[in-house]
Protein backbone atom coordinates (compact mmCIF):
# COMPACT_ATOMS: atom_id res chain seq x y z
CA UNK A 1 0.00 0.00 0.00
CA UNK A 2 3.00 2.29 -0.27
CA UNK A 3 2.26 3.32 -3.83
CA UNK A 4 0.57 6.71 -3.87
CA UNK A 5 -1.68 7.89 -6.62
CA UNK A 6 -2.20 11.54 -7.44
CA UNK A 7 -5.38 12.80 -8.99
CA UNK A 8 -6.74 16.29 -9.43
CA UNK A 9 -10.27 17.09 -8.37
CA UNK A 10 -11.73 20.44 -9.36
CA UNK A 11 -8.24 21.89 -9.51
CA UNK A 12 -6.85 20.41 -6.29
CA UNK A 13 -4.21 17.71 -6.46
CA UNK A 14 -4.89 14.99 -3.92
CA UNK A 15 -3.12 11.84 -2.87
CA UNK A 16 -5.03 8.59 -2.99
CA UNK A 17 -4.45 4.95 -2.18
CA UNK A 18 -4.80 2.34 -4.90
CA UNK A 19 -8.33 0.96 -4.82
CA UNK A 20 -9.87 4.13 -3.39
CA UNK A 21 -12.81 5.71 -5.11
CA UNK A 22 -12.74 9.28 -6.39
CA UNK A 23 -15.31 10.21 -3.76
CA UNK A 24 -13.20 8.89 -0.88
CA UNK A 25 -10.21 10.79 -2.16
CA UNK A 26 -12.22 13.98 -2.38
CA UNK A 27 -13.15 13.75 1.29
CA UNK A 28 -9.48 14.19 2.17
CA UNK A 29 -9.34 17.57 0.49
CA UNK A 30 -8.98 20.95 2.19
CA UNK A 31 -12.59 22.04 1.79
CA UNK A 32 -15.70 20.69 3.46
CA UNK A 33 -17.63 18.69 0.90
CA UNK A 34 -21.19 19.99 0.80
CA UNK A 35 -22.54 18.78 -2.53
CA UNK A 36 -22.31 15.94 -5.02
CA UNK A 37 -22.31 13.43 -2.23
CA UNK A 38 -24.93 11.24 -0.64
CA UNK A 39 -24.87 7.47 -0.37
CA UNK A 40 -21.08 7.23 -0.13
CA UNK A 41 -20.48 4.30 -2.43
CA UNK A 42 -23.67 2.35 -2.77
CA UNK A 43 -24.25 4.01 -6.12
CA UNK A 44 -27.95 4.73 -5.61
CA UNK A 45 -28.30 8.44 -4.89
CA UNK A 46 -26.86 9.74 -8.16
CA UNK A 47 -25.36 12.83 -6.55
CA UNK A 48 -21.66 12.34 -7.18
CA UNK A 49 -21.80 12.77 -10.92
CA UNK A 50 -18.59 14.00 -12.46
CA UNK A 51 -16.51 14.27 -15.60
CA UNK A 52 -13.41 12.10 -15.61
CA UNK A 53 -10.39 12.22 -17.85
CA UNK A 54 -7.72 9.59 -17.46
CA UNK A 55 -4.09 10.49 -17.95
CA UNK A 56 -3.13 10.54 -21.60
CA UNK A 57 -6.67 10.02 -22.83
CA UNK A 58 -8.57 12.35 -25.07
CA UNK A 59 -12.02 11.30 -23.93
CA UNK A 60 -13.71 12.93 -20.98
CA UNK A 61 -16.55 10.78 -19.69
CA UNK A 62 -19.36 11.16 -17.17
CA UNK A 63 -19.18 8.85 -14.14
CA UNK A 64 -20.30 8.40 -10.55
CA UNK A 65 -17.39 9.35 -8.30
CA UNK A 66 -18.31 6.78 -5.66
CA UNK A 67 -18.08 3.91 -8.12
CA UNK A 68 -14.98 5.00 -9.99
CA UNK A 69 -11.60 3.79 -8.75
CA UNK A 70 -8.76 6.28 -8.88
CA UNK A 71 -5.89 6.02 -11.34
CA UNK A 72 -2.73 8.06 -11.31
CA UNK A 73 -3.05 11.32 -13.24
CA UNK A 74 -6.83 11.21 -13.37
CA UNK A 75 -8.61 14.56 -13.62
CA UNK A 76 -12.08 14.97 -12.19
CA UNK A 77 -14.62 17.79 -12.36
CA UNK A 78 -17.88 17.47 -10.45
CA UNK A 79 -21.16 18.48 -12.08
CA UNK A 80 -23.66 20.57 -10.13
CA UNK A 81 -27.18 19.46 -9.52
CA UNK A 82 -29.90 21.98 -9.89
CA UNK A 83 -33.57 22.00 -10.76
CA UNK A 84 -33.93 23.43 -14.26
CA UNK A 85 -36.38 26.26 -14.91
CA UNK A 86 -38.49 24.08 -17.10
CA UNK A 87 -39.88 20.92 -15.54
CA UNK A 88 -42.83 18.77 -16.52
CA UNK A 89 -45.69 19.12 -14.10
CA UNK A 90 -48.16 16.36 -13.43
CA UNK A 91 -49.77 14.87 -10.35
CA UNK A 92 -50.03 11.22 -9.43
CA UNK A 93 -53.81 11.17 -9.81
CA UNK A 94 -53.39 12.33 -13.41
CA UNK A 95 -51.93 8.90 -14.10
CA UNK A 96 -54.90 6.78 -13.07
CA UNK A 97 -56.40 6.16 -16.48
CA UNK A 98 -54.21 3.83 -18.52
CA UNK A 99 -55.93 4.77 -21.77
CA UNK A 100 -54.76 8.31 -21.24
CA UNK A 101 -51.14 7.47 -20.43
CA UNK A 102 -49.83 7.94 -23.96
CA UNK A 103 -51.73 11.15 -24.81
CA UNK A 104 -50.81 12.54 -21.41
CA UNK A 105 -47.19 11.59 -21.93
CA UNK A 106 -47.22 13.50 -25.22
CA UNK A 107 -48.83 16.44 -23.50
CA UNK A 108 -46.61 16.41 -20.42
CA UNK A 109 -43.35 15.57 -22.19
CA UNK A 110 -43.89 16.85 -25.75
CA UNK A 111 -40.13 16.84 -26.34
CA UNK A 112 -40.15 13.04 -26.28
CA UNK A 113 -41.12 13.08 -29.94
CA UNK A 114 -38.15 15.30 -30.79
CA UNK A 115 -35.40 12.76 -30.10
CA UNK A 116 -32.77 13.07 -32.77
CA UNK A 117 -30.94 9.92 -31.82
CA UNK A 118 -27.63 11.51 -30.97
CA UNK A 119 -26.97 8.81 -28.37
CA UNK A 120 -25.62 11.28 -25.83
CA UNK A 121 -27.97 9.98 -23.13
CA UNK A 122 -26.74 6.41 -23.58
CA UNK A 123 -23.15 7.55 -23.32
CA UNK A 124 -23.90 9.69 -20.28
CA UNK A 125 -25.74 7.02 -18.25
CA UNK A 126 -23.57 5.53 -15.48
CA UNK A 127 -25.96 2.59 -15.21
CA UNK A 128 -25.71 1.57 -18.85
CA UNK A 129 -29.44 2.01 -19.44
CA UNK A 130 -30.35 2.13 -23.16
CA UNK A 131 -32.00 5.48 -22.58
CA UNK A 132 -32.51 6.40 -26.20
CA UNK A 133 -34.28 3.11 -26.87
CA UNK A 134 -36.52 3.79 -23.87
CA UNK A 135 -37.53 7.14 -25.30
CA UNK A 136 -38.14 5.61 -28.72
CA UNK A 137 -40.34 2.91 -27.18
CA UNK A 138 -42.22 5.50 -25.15
CA UNK A 139 -43.00 7.69 -28.11
CA UNK A 140 -44.21 4.62 -30.02
CA UNK A 141 -46.61 3.77 -27.20
CA UNK A 142 -44.71 0.66 -26.05
CA UNK A 143 -45.08 1.87 -22.51
CA UNK A 144 -44.41 -1.26 -20.39
CA UNK A 145 -41.26 -2.03 -22.40
CA UNK A 146 -40.07 1.56 -22.05
CA UNK A 147 -40.81 1.61 -18.32
CA UNK A 148 -38.91 -1.63 -17.78
CA UNK A 149 -35.72 -0.18 -19.23
CA UNK A 150 -35.70 2.55 -16.59
CA UNK A 151 -36.05 0.09 -13.70
CA UNK A 152 -32.42 0.45 -12.48
CA UNK A 153 -32.37 4.25 -12.94
CA UNK A 154 -30.91 6.17 -10.01
CA UNK A 155 -32.16 9.57 -11.20
CA UNK A 156 -28.71 11.12 -11.48
CA UNK A 157 -30.16 13.32 -14.24
CA UNK A 158 -27.10 12.92 -16.46
CA UNK A 159 -29.30 11.95 -19.41
CA UNK A 160 -31.44 15.01 -18.79
CA UNK A 161 -28.31 17.12 -18.76
CA UNK A 162 -27.00 15.43 -21.90
CA UNK A 163 -30.18 15.80 -23.93
CA UNK A 164 -30.01 18.67 -26.42
CA UNK A 165 -33.79 18.52 -26.91
CA UNK A 166 -34.62 18.91 -23.20
CA UNK A 167 -36.38 15.54 -23.10
CA UNK A 168 -35.52 14.66 -19.47
CA UNK A 169 -35.49 10.91 -20.22
CA UNK A 170 -35.16 9.71 -16.62
CA UNK A 171 -38.27 11.66 -15.67
CA UNK A 172 -40.14 10.19 -18.63
CA UNK A 173 -39.08 6.74 -17.44
CA UNK A 174 -40.22 7.44 -13.90
CA UNK A 175 -43.52 8.83 -15.17
CA UNK A 176 -44.17 5.59 -17.05
CA UNK A 177 -43.15 3.40 -14.13
CA UNK A 178 -45.38 5.34 -11.77
CA UNK A 179 -48.32 5.14 -14.15
CA UNK A 180 -47.82 1.38 -14.29
CA UNK A 181 -47.92 0.93 -10.52
CA UNK A 182 -50.81 3.35 -10.05
CA UNK A 183 -52.90 1.58 -12.67
CA UNK A 184 -52.07 -2.06 -12.06
CA UNK A 185 -51.12 -2.69 -8.46
CA UNK A 186 -54.23 -3.78 -6.48
CA UNK A 187 -53.04 -6.50 -4.08
CA UNK A 188 -56.00 -8.51 -2.84
CA UNK A 189 -54.66 -9.01 0.65
CA UNK A 190 -54.01 -5.29 1.02
CA UNK A 191 -57.55 -4.48 -0.08
CA UNK A 192 -58.93 -6.95 2.47
CA UNK A 193 -56.69 -5.65 5.27
CA UNK A 194 -57.71 -2.05 4.60
CA UNK A 195 -61.34 -3.13 4.57
CA UNK A 196 -60.94 -4.92 7.91
CA UNK A 197 -59.33 -1.85 9.42
CA UNK A 198 -62.05 0.40 8.04
CA UNK A 199 -64.58 -1.79 9.86
CA UNK A 200 -62.67 -1.25 13.08
CA UNK A 201 -61.31 -4.78 13.20
CA UNK A 202 -57.77 -5.85 14.07
CA UNK A 203 -57.14 -3.28 16.79
CA UNK A 204 -53.89 -3.97 18.63
CA UNK A 205 -53.83 -4.97 22.26
CA UNK A 206 -50.82 -3.08 23.57
CA UNK A 207 -50.70 -4.89 26.90
CA UNK A 208 -50.94 -8.48 25.75
CA UNK A 209 -47.19 -8.71 25.26
CA UNK A 210 -46.65 -8.05 28.96
CA UNK A 211 -48.62 -11.16 29.84
CA UNK A 212 -46.82 -13.20 27.21
CA UNK A 213 -43.35 -12.03 28.13
CA UNK A 214 -43.90 -12.67 31.82
CA UNK A 215 -45.24 -16.17 31.19
Amino acid at each position, binding site marked *: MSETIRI*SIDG*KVMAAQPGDSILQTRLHGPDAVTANIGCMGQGVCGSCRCLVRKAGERDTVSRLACETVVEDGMQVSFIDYYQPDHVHHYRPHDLRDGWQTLPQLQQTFPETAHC*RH*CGGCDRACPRGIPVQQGIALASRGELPAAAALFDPCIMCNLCTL*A*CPENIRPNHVGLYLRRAQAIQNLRPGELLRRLDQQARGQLAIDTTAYLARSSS
Partner: protein
Amino acid sequence: MEKLNQVLLNPAVQVGPDLAAWLHAGGGLGLQAALGAPSAIIRCIADADLRGMGGAGFPAWRKWEATANAVGDCKYVVCNGNEDEPGTFKDRTLLSASPHQVVEGALIAALAVRARCLIFYLNPHQDSSLHTMQQAVSQWQDSPWLDKLSHALGHPLDIKVVASSGRYIGGEETAVVASLEAGFPFPRKKPPFPAEQGINNQPTLINNVETLANVSHILRHGAGWYRALGVGKACGTKLYSLSGDVLRPGLYELPMGSSLQELVFHYGGGMLQGKAFKAVFTGGPSNTLLTARDLDVALDFDSVWLRHSRLGTGAMIVISEGSSIIRKVAEYIDFFAKGSCGQCPSCKCGTFQLARLLDRVDGGRHSPADLDALQHLCQILPGSGRCGLIDGAVTVVKSSLHTFPEEYGLLVQQTA
Protein backbone atom coordinates in the same frame (compact mmCIF):
# COMPACT_ATOMS: atom_id res chain seq x y z
CA MET B 1 -12.35 56.81 -46.52
CA GLU B 2 -11.08 55.43 -49.84
CA LYS B 3 -10.11 52.15 -48.17
CA LEU B 4 -13.65 51.37 -47.07
CA ASN B 5 -15.99 49.02 -48.93
CA GLN B 6 -13.94 48.62 -52.10
CA VAL B 7 -15.14 45.26 -53.31
CA LEU B 8 -17.84 43.18 -51.64
CA LEU B 9 -19.68 46.08 -50.06
CA ASN B 10 -18.97 48.43 -52.94
CA PRO B 11 -22.20 50.39 -53.49
CA ALA B 12 -22.01 49.55 -57.17
CA VAL B 13 -22.58 45.86 -56.55
CA GLN B 14 -25.38 46.19 -53.99
CA VAL B 15 -27.94 45.41 -56.66
CA GLY B 16 -30.17 42.87 -54.88
CA PRO B 17 -31.55 39.86 -56.74
CA ASP B 18 -31.71 41.47 -60.18
CA LEU B 19 -29.30 39.55 -62.43
CA ALA B 20 -29.41 42.14 -65.21
CA ALA B 21 -28.32 44.83 -62.79
CA TRP B 22 -25.48 42.62 -61.60
CA LEU B 23 -24.30 41.98 -65.14
CA HIS B 24 -24.58 45.67 -65.84
CA ALA B 25 -22.33 46.37 -62.86
CA GLY B 26 -19.62 44.12 -64.31
CA GLY B 27 -20.94 40.79 -63.12
CA GLY B 28 -20.31 37.76 -65.28
CA LEU B 29 -16.83 38.83 -66.30
CA GLY B 30 -15.25 36.65 -63.66
CA LEU B 31 -17.21 33.61 -64.76
CA GLN B 32 -16.39 34.40 -68.35
CA ALA B 33 -12.70 34.45 -67.54
CA ALA B 34 -13.04 31.18 -65.70
CA LEU B 35 -14.86 29.52 -68.58
CA GLY B 36 -12.04 30.64 -70.83
CA ALA B 37 -9.47 28.65 -68.88
CA PRO B 38 -11.07 26.34 -66.30
CA SER B 39 -7.79 24.61 -65.47
CA ALA B 40 -6.24 27.92 -64.43
CA ILE B 41 -8.88 28.78 -61.81
CA ILE B 42 -7.27 27.09 -58.82
CA ARG B 43 -3.89 28.52 -59.71
CA CYS B 44 -5.40 31.98 -59.78
CA ILE B 45 -7.10 31.51 -56.40
CA ALA B 46 -3.82 30.22 -54.97
CA ASP B 47 -1.89 33.18 -56.33
CA ALA B 48 -4.44 35.54 -54.81
CA ASP B 49 -3.98 33.80 -51.43
CA LEU B 50 -7.72 33.75 -50.86
CA ARG B 51 -8.43 32.47 -47.34
CA GLY B 52 -11.39 30.69 -45.83
CA MET B 53 -13.43 33.56 -44.39
CA GLY B 54 -15.70 31.37 -42.23
CA GLY B 55 -13.17 31.46 -39.45
CA ALA B 56 -10.39 29.03 -40.26
CA GLY B 57 -8.36 31.31 -42.53
CA PHE B 58 -7.13 28.21 -44.30
CA PRO B 59 -5.90 28.82 -47.89
CA ALA B 60 -8.99 28.23 -50.01
CA TRP B 61 -7.17 26.68 -52.96
CA ARG B 62 -6.07 23.66 -50.95
CA LYS B 63 -9.61 22.49 -50.40
CA TRP B 64 -10.40 23.29 -54.02
CA GLU B 65 -7.47 21.29 -55.24
CA ALA B 66 -8.16 18.38 -52.91
CA THR B 67 -11.76 18.25 -54.11
CA ALA B 68 -10.72 18.60 -57.73
CA ASN B 69 -8.20 15.77 -57.41
CA ALA B 70 -10.42 13.44 -55.39
CA VAL B 71 -12.20 10.67 -57.27
CA GLY B 72 -15.96 10.89 -57.48
CA ASP B 73 -18.67 10.96 -60.06
CA CYS B 74 -20.96 13.40 -58.29
CA LYS B 75 -18.93 16.06 -56.54
CA TYR B 76 -20.58 18.75 -54.50
CA VAL B 77 -19.93 22.39 -53.80
CA VAL B 78 -21.65 23.82 -50.74
CA CYS B 79 -21.88 27.52 -50.02
CA ASN B 80 -22.06 27.65 -46.24
CA GLY B 81 -24.39 30.42 -45.10
CA ASN B 82 -25.34 29.01 -41.71
CA GLU B 83 -23.85 32.02 -39.90
CA ASP B 84 -25.15 31.91 -36.33
CA GLU B 85 -22.30 33.06 -34.09
CA PRO B 86 -23.02 35.94 -31.72
CA GLY B 87 -21.61 39.15 -33.16
CA THR B 88 -21.22 37.93 -36.74
CA PHE B 89 -23.49 39.46 -39.38
CA LYS B 90 -21.53 39.54 -42.61
CA ASP B 91 -22.90 36.63 -44.66
CA ARG B 92 -26.52 37.66 -44.26
CA THR B 93 -25.62 41.12 -45.58
CA LEU B 94 -23.88 39.70 -48.63
CA LEU B 95 -26.67 37.24 -49.33
CA SER B 96 -29.44 39.78 -49.17
CA ALA B 97 -27.74 42.84 -50.66
CA SER B 98 -25.56 41.36 -53.38
CA PRO B 99 -26.44 37.70 -53.87
CA HIS B 100 -25.08 37.41 -57.38
CA GLN B 101 -21.47 37.86 -56.45
CA VAL B 102 -21.94 34.86 -54.14
CA VAL B 103 -23.65 32.78 -56.81
CA GLU B 104 -21.11 33.64 -59.46
CA GLY B 105 -18.24 32.72 -57.14
CA ALA B 106 -19.91 29.42 -56.33
CA LEU B 107 -20.40 28.65 -60.03
CA ILE B 108 -16.71 29.25 -60.63
CA ALA B 109 -15.88 26.92 -57.76
CA ALA B 110 -18.18 24.27 -59.23
CA LEU B 111 -16.37 24.62 -62.51
CA ALA B 112 -12.98 24.39 -60.86
CA VAL B 113 -13.71 21.16 -58.99
CA ARG B 114 -16.04 19.77 -61.70
CA ALA B 115 -19.05 19.49 -59.41
CA ARG B 116 -22.41 18.08 -60.39
CA CYS B 117 -24.27 19.70 -57.58
CA LEU B 118 -24.11 23.15 -56.02
CA ILE B 119 -25.94 23.75 -52.76
CA PHE B 120 -26.57 27.03 -51.03
CA TYR B 121 -26.95 26.08 -47.37
CA LEU B 122 -28.53 29.05 -45.67
CA ASN B 123 -29.70 29.95 -42.19
CA PRO B 124 -33.51 30.13 -42.30
CA HIS B 125 -33.62 32.51 -39.35
CA GLN B 126 -32.35 35.17 -41.70
CA ASP B 127 -35.32 34.89 -44.04
CA SER B 128 -34.51 37.85 -46.25
CA SER B 129 -31.26 36.26 -47.35
CA LEU B 130 -32.93 32.90 -48.04
CA HIS B 131 -35.64 34.57 -50.11
CA THR B 132 -33.24 36.79 -52.03
CA MET B 133 -30.98 33.87 -52.83
CA GLN B 134 -33.87 31.81 -54.17
CA GLN B 135 -34.73 34.65 -56.52
CA ALA B 136 -31.13 35.14 -57.54
CA VAL B 137 -30.46 31.47 -58.22
CA SER B 138 -33.57 31.00 -60.33
CA GLN B 139 -32.45 33.86 -62.56
CA TRP B 140 -29.12 32.17 -63.15
CA GLN B 141 -30.89 28.92 -63.92
CA ASP B 142 -32.89 30.65 -66.65
CA SER B 143 -29.85 32.41 -68.11
CA PRO B 144 -27.54 31.24 -70.94
CA TRP B 145 -24.67 31.23 -68.44
CA LEU B 146 -25.68 27.90 -67.08
CA ASP B 147 -25.68 26.28 -70.50
CA LYS B 148 -22.16 27.53 -71.08
CA LEU B 149 -21.16 26.16 -67.71
CA SER B 150 -22.72 22.74 -68.39
CA HIS B 151 -20.99 22.66 -71.70
CA ALA B 152 -17.64 23.36 -70.10
CA LEU B 153 -18.26 20.77 -67.39
CA GLY B 154 -19.56 18.18 -69.80
CA HIS B 155 -22.59 17.54 -67.62
CA PRO B 156 -25.43 19.56 -66.14
CA LEU B 157 -25.00 21.37 -62.83
CA ASP B 158 -27.80 20.93 -60.33
CA ILE B 159 -28.29 24.00 -58.11
CA LYS B 160 -30.29 23.99 -54.87
CA VAL B 161 -31.05 26.45 -52.15
CA VAL B 162 -31.45 24.59 -48.86
CA ALA B 163 -32.45 25.94 -45.47
CA SER B 164 -30.06 24.79 -42.76
CA SER B 165 -31.27 23.89 -39.27
CA GLY B 166 -30.29 27.36 -38.13
CA ARG B 167 -28.37 25.86 -35.23
CA TYR B 168 -24.95 27.15 -34.38
CA ILE B 169 -23.44 23.69 -34.65
CA GLY B 170 -24.80 23.36 -38.22
CA GLY B 171 -22.03 25.58 -39.57
CA GLU B 172 -19.28 23.10 -38.76
CA GLU B 173 -18.08 21.41 -41.97
CA THR B 174 -18.92 17.84 -41.06
CA ALA B 175 -22.22 19.00 -39.57
CA VAL B 176 -23.03 20.60 -42.92
CA VAL B 177 -22.47 17.25 -44.56
CA ALA B 178 -24.56 15.40 -41.96
CA SER B 179 -27.33 17.94 -42.23
CA LEU B 180 -27.51 17.73 -46.02
CA GLU B 181 -27.46 13.94 -45.91
CA ALA B 182 -29.77 13.04 -43.08
CA GLY B 183 -31.30 16.11 -41.57
CA PHE B 184 -29.69 16.79 -38.23
CA PRO B 185 -26.33 18.56 -38.20
CA PHE B 186 -24.29 16.18 -36.08
CA PRO B 187 -20.59 16.91 -36.37
CA ARG B 188 -18.51 13.88 -37.33
CA LYS B 189 -15.00 12.81 -36.63
CA LYS B 190 -12.31 14.02 -39.03
CA PRO B 191 -10.67 12.52 -41.06
CA PRO B 192 -12.05 11.81 -43.54
CA PHE B 193 -12.32 15.43 -44.59
CA PRO B 194 -15.27 16.47 -46.74
CA ALA B 195 -12.96 17.27 -49.66
CA GLU B 196 -12.32 13.52 -49.88
CA GLN B 197 -15.55 12.06 -48.51
CA GLY B 198 -18.36 14.49 -47.95
CA ILE B 199 -22.02 14.31 -48.91
CA ASN B 200 -22.90 10.70 -49.78
CA ASN B 201 -19.17 9.95 -49.56
CA GLN B 202 -18.57 12.18 -52.57
CA PRO B 203 -15.81 14.81 -52.60
CA THR B 204 -17.39 17.99 -51.31
CA LEU B 205 -16.06 21.55 -51.30
CA ILE B 206 -17.54 23.61 -48.49
CA ASN B 207 -16.80 27.33 -48.53
CA ASN B 208 -18.12 30.24 -46.56
CA VAL B 209 -20.30 32.86 -48.28
CA GLU B 210 -17.67 35.59 -47.99
CA THR B 211 -14.97 33.34 -49.44
CA LEU B 212 -17.03 32.57 -52.52
CA ALA B 213 -18.14 36.19 -52.89
CA ASN B 214 -14.52 37.17 -53.56
CA VAL B 215 -13.97 34.63 -56.32
CA SER B 216 -15.58 36.36 -59.29
CA HIS B 217 -13.69 39.55 -58.51
CA ILE B 218 -10.40 37.69 -58.37
CA LEU B 219 -11.02 35.94 -61.67
CA ARG B 220 -12.12 39.19 -63.27
CA HIS B 221 -9.33 41.45 -62.03
CA GLY B 222 -6.57 38.94 -61.50
CA ALA B 223 -4.69 37.60 -58.49
CA GLY B 224 -2.26 40.51 -58.42
CA TRP B 225 -5.08 43.02 -58.08
CA TYR B 226 -6.51 41.07 -55.14
CA ARG B 227 -3.17 40.71 -53.40
CA ALA B 228 -2.58 44.44 -53.65
CA LEU B 229 -5.81 45.19 -51.80
CA GLY B 230 -4.39 43.98 -48.50
CA VAL B 231 -2.05 45.64 -46.05
CA GLY B 232 1.51 44.32 -45.98
CA LYS B 233 1.63 40.59 -46.65
CA ALA B 234 -2.12 40.21 -46.23
CA CYS B 235 -4.23 39.96 -49.35
CA GLY B 236 -7.66 41.20 -50.32
CA THR B 237 -10.26 42.71 -48.09
CA LYS B 238 -12.13 41.46 -45.04
CA LEU B 239 -15.60 42.02 -43.71
CA TYR B 240 -15.45 43.04 -40.06
CA SER B 241 -18.65 42.75 -37.99
CA LEU B 242 -18.07 45.47 -35.43
CA SER B 243 -20.34 45.51 -32.38
CA GLY B 244 -20.31 46.27 -28.68
CA ASP B 245 -19.44 49.50 -26.91
CA VAL B 246 -18.49 51.55 -29.97
CA LEU B 247 -20.15 54.63 -31.39
CA ARG B 248 -20.89 53.23 -34.83
CA PRO B 249 -21.29 49.46 -34.81
CA GLY B 250 -21.78 47.88 -38.20
CA LEU B 251 -20.28 45.89 -41.03
CA TYR B 252 -17.08 47.30 -42.51
CA GLU B 253 -15.11 46.00 -45.45
CA LEU B 254 -11.48 47.03 -45.02
CA PRO B 255 -8.18 45.96 -46.48
CA MET B 256 -7.19 42.69 -44.87
CA GLY B 257 -4.63 43.58 -42.22
CA SER B 258 -6.08 46.94 -41.22
CA SER B 259 -5.36 47.57 -37.56
CA LEU B 260 -7.78 47.05 -34.72
CA GLN B 261 -7.13 50.66 -33.73
CA GLU B 262 -8.26 51.85 -37.13
CA LEU B 263 -11.38 49.70 -37.12
CA VAL B 264 -12.51 50.70 -33.67
CA PHE B 265 -11.43 54.32 -33.46
CA HIS B 266 -11.53 55.49 -37.04
CA TYR B 267 -14.35 53.58 -38.69
CA GLY B 268 -16.22 52.62 -35.53
CA GLY B 269 -16.15 56.18 -34.27
CA GLY B 270 -14.37 55.28 -31.06
CA MET B 271 -15.69 54.05 -27.75
CA LEU B 272 -19.22 54.76 -26.63
CA GLN B 273 -19.35 57.64 -24.14
CA GLY B 274 -15.59 57.99 -24.42
CA LYS B 275 -14.92 55.07 -22.09
CA ALA B 276 -11.60 53.32 -22.23
CA PHE B 277 -11.20 50.34 -24.53
CA LYS B 278 -10.90 47.14 -22.49
CA ALA B 279 -11.00 44.17 -24.81
CA VAL B 280 -12.45 42.62 -27.89
CA PHE B 281 -13.96 39.18 -28.41
CA THR B 282 -12.95 38.10 -31.89
CA GLY B 283 -14.51 35.72 -34.32
CA GLY B 284 -16.87 33.07 -32.80
CA PRO B 285 -16.68 34.43 -30.01
CA SER B 286 -14.64 31.38 -29.17
CA ASN B 287 -11.13 32.83 -29.25
CA THR B 288 -8.59 34.44 -27.00
CA LEU B 289 -9.45 38.02 -26.05
CA LEU B 290 -7.48 40.92 -27.53
CA THR B 291 -6.82 43.80 -25.15
CA ALA B 292 -5.65 47.42 -25.29
CA ARG B 293 -2.11 46.10 -25.79
CA ASP B 294 -3.29 44.57 -29.03
CA LEU B 295 -4.87 47.67 -30.57
CA ASP B 296 -2.00 47.80 -33.04
CA VAL B 297 -2.59 44.27 -34.28
CA ALA B 298 -3.18 43.89 -37.99
CA LEU B 299 -6.52 42.21 -38.46
CA ASP B 300 -5.46 39.41 -40.77
CA PHE B 301 -5.38 35.71 -40.00
CA ASP B 302 -1.63 35.40 -39.54
CA SER B 303 -1.07 38.53 -37.50
CA VAL B 304 -3.86 37.78 -35.07
CA TRP B 305 -2.55 34.23 -34.76
CA LEU B 306 0.81 35.64 -33.69
CA ARG B 307 -1.03 37.26 -30.77
CA HIS B 308 -2.27 33.78 -29.81
CA SER B 309 -5.79 34.52 -30.92
CA ARG B 310 -7.77 34.07 -34.10
CA LEU B 311 -9.41 36.43 -36.51
CA GLY B 312 -12.25 33.94 -36.89
CA THR B 313 -15.23 35.27 -38.79
CA GLY B 314 -13.97 38.83 -38.42
CA ALA B 315 -16.49 39.59 -35.69
CA MET B 316 -15.19 42.16 -33.24
CA ILE B 317 -17.25 42.54 -30.08
CA VAL B 318 -15.78 45.51 -28.28
CA ILE B 319 -15.93 45.82 -24.50
CA SER B 320 -15.28 49.07 -22.68
CA GLU B 321 -14.21 49.73 -19.13
CA GLY B 322 -17.44 49.57 -17.20
CA SER B 323 -18.65 46.42 -18.91
CA SER B 324 -18.09 43.06 -17.25
CA ILE B 325 -15.99 40.55 -19.12
CA ILE B 326 -17.36 37.75 -16.97
CA ARG B 327 -20.93 38.61 -17.81
CA LYS B 328 -20.12 38.51 -21.51
CA VAL B 329 -18.24 35.24 -21.18
CA ALA B 330 -21.13 33.77 -19.21
CA GLU B 331 -23.50 34.83 -21.95
CA TYR B 332 -21.40 33.17 -24.65
CA ILE B 333 -20.90 29.98 -22.67
CA ASP B 334 -24.65 29.80 -22.21
CA PHE B 335 -24.94 30.10 -25.96
CA PHE B 336 -22.47 27.26 -26.48
CA ALA B 337 -24.16 25.10 -23.83
CA LYS B 338 -27.49 25.47 -25.57
CA GLY B 339 -25.89 24.93 -28.97
CA SER B 340 -24.01 21.76 -28.01
CA CYS B 341 -25.49 18.95 -30.11
CA GLY B 342 -25.61 16.29 -27.41
CA GLN B 343 -23.44 13.63 -29.00
CA CYS B 344 -20.58 14.08 -26.54
CA PRO B 345 -21.54 14.15 -22.84
CA SER B 346 -18.25 15.90 -22.11
CA CYS B 347 -19.33 18.85 -24.24
CA LYS B 348 -22.93 18.98 -23.08
CA CYS B 349 -22.12 18.45 -19.39
CA GLY B 350 -18.88 20.45 -19.58
CA THR B 351 -20.47 23.56 -21.05
CA PHE B 352 -23.30 23.20 -18.51
CA GLN B 353 -20.86 23.18 -15.64
CA LEU B 354 -18.84 26.07 -17.10
CA ALA B 355 -22.07 28.04 -17.37
CA ARG B 356 -23.08 27.17 -13.80
CA LEU B 357 -19.73 28.27 -12.40
CA LEU B 358 -19.68 31.47 -14.45
CA ASP B 359 -23.21 32.23 -13.31
CA ARG B 360 -22.02 31.98 -9.71
CA VAL B 361 -18.98 34.16 -10.38
CA ASP B 362 -21.05 36.71 -12.26
CA GLY B 363 -23.55 36.76 -9.42
CA GLY B 364 -20.75 37.33 -6.93
CA ARG B 365 -21.62 34.25 -4.91
CA HIS B 366 -18.68 32.04 -5.78
CA SER B 367 -16.07 30.59 -3.50
CA PRO B 368 -12.34 30.28 -4.22
CA ALA B 369 -12.99 26.59 -4.87
CA ASP B 370 -15.37 27.52 -7.69
CA LEU B 371 -12.55 29.40 -9.42
CA ASP B 372 -10.28 26.39 -9.05
CA ALA B 373 -13.02 24.23 -10.49
CA LEU B 374 -13.47 26.61 -13.42
CA GLN B 375 -9.78 26.54 -14.25
CA HIS B 376 -9.71 22.79 -13.88
CA LEU B 377 -12.57 22.33 -16.33
CA CYS B 378 -10.54 24.35 -18.81
CA GLN B 379 -7.87 21.67 -18.51
CA ILE B 380 -9.95 18.55 -18.83
CA LEU B 381 -12.41 19.52 -21.54
CA PRO B 382 -10.31 20.50 -24.58
CA GLY B 383 -10.11 17.83 -27.23
CA SER B 384 -12.85 15.71 -25.74
CA GLY B 385 -15.49 16.54 -28.33
CA ARG B 386 -15.96 15.42 -31.89
CA CYS B 387 -15.97 18.99 -33.10
CA GLY B 388 -14.40 22.18 -31.84
CA LEU B 389 -17.35 23.58 -29.90
CA ILE B 390 -16.06 22.61 -26.49
CA ASP B 391 -12.56 23.79 -27.40
CA GLY B 392 -13.87 27.20 -28.44
CA ALA B 393 -15.92 27.53 -25.28
CA VAL B 394 -12.91 26.65 -23.15
CA THR B 395 -10.65 29.04 -25.06
CA VAL B 396 -12.79 32.06 -24.31
CA VAL B 397 -13.13 31.15 -20.61
CA LYS B 398 -9.44 30.45 -20.26
CA SER B 399 -8.53 33.65 -22.00
CA SER B 400 -10.78 35.74 -19.77
CA LEU B 401 -9.26 34.08 -16.70
CA HIS B 402 -5.78 34.73 -17.99
CA THR B 403 -6.32 38.28 -19.19
CA PHE B 404 -8.69 39.58 -16.54
CA PRO B 405 -7.88 37.65 -13.35
CA GLU B 406 -8.84 40.67 -11.27
CA GLU B 407 -12.40 40.52 -12.55
CA TYR B 408 -12.59 37.02 -11.17
CA GLY B 409 -11.13 38.25 -7.93
CA LEU B 410 -8.09 36.08 -8.45
CA LEU B 411 -5.43 38.76 -7.86
CA VAL B 412 -7.33 40.24 -4.95
CA GLN B 413 -7.12 36.95 -3.12
CA GLN B 414 -3.45 36.52 -3.74
CA THR B 415 -2.64 39.88 -2.17
CA ALA B 416 -5.14 39.53 0.66
